[in-house]
């Protein structure tokens, strides 16, 4: 009798930290920055822009913002 192999669950993705440098621009046509669990540091005059969401976190977003984070509604 053959035993069907079971796919193991993928390992959890560790929380990440995203540092957006001063003056930098991060743009997505739909989402600017997407992750499951993370910390985002947006430095002076930096920007994160998405057509729908600037930042989309599936679980948890911790944000320190000194720039601009926007969802423009274009996505």
């Amino acid at each position, binding site marked *: 009798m053959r035993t069907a192999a079971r796919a193991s669950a993928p390992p959890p993705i560790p929380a990440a930290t995203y540092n957006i440098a001063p003056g930098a621009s991060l743009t997505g046509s739909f989402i600017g920055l997407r992750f499951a669990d993370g910390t985002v540091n*947006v430095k002076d005059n930096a920007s994160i822009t998405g057509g*729908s*969401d*600037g*930042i*989309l*976190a*599936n*679980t*948890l*977003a*911790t*944000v*320190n*913002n*000194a*720039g*601009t*984070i*926007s*969802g*423009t*509604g274009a996505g």
Partner: protein
Amino acid sequence: MPAPSRARARGSGGITGGTVNVTANTGTISGVLAGIGAADVNVTANTGTITGGANGIHAATLATVDNAGTISGTDTGGIGIFAGTGTVNVTANTGTISGVLAGIGAADVNVTANTAASRVARSASALAVAA
């Protein structure tokens, strides 16, 4: 009176997610629907601007806010901080929380420190909490 605007928890937001913690904001967070939209929103230090067409902050369950800047819902029916059947706790406000319809709209609203110089404004609804 216009109907209150309720932003989706996800989509057309500056920041959306399950839980959003803004530990500091000196800049601008904006969305067509909501500046921040999540089940739980914690804003521990805002000296900048959080704005959305429907809601500056939309929390499905709980919003906890310490504000020295501006939080606003700018469209017709807009509400600055909206939590529907949930709770809004404003732990300190020396800035402005405003909406075209209401400054704050939620089943439970607790404002524990709102200075005379600040305002929690609205134009046409008893949902607002006046300074």
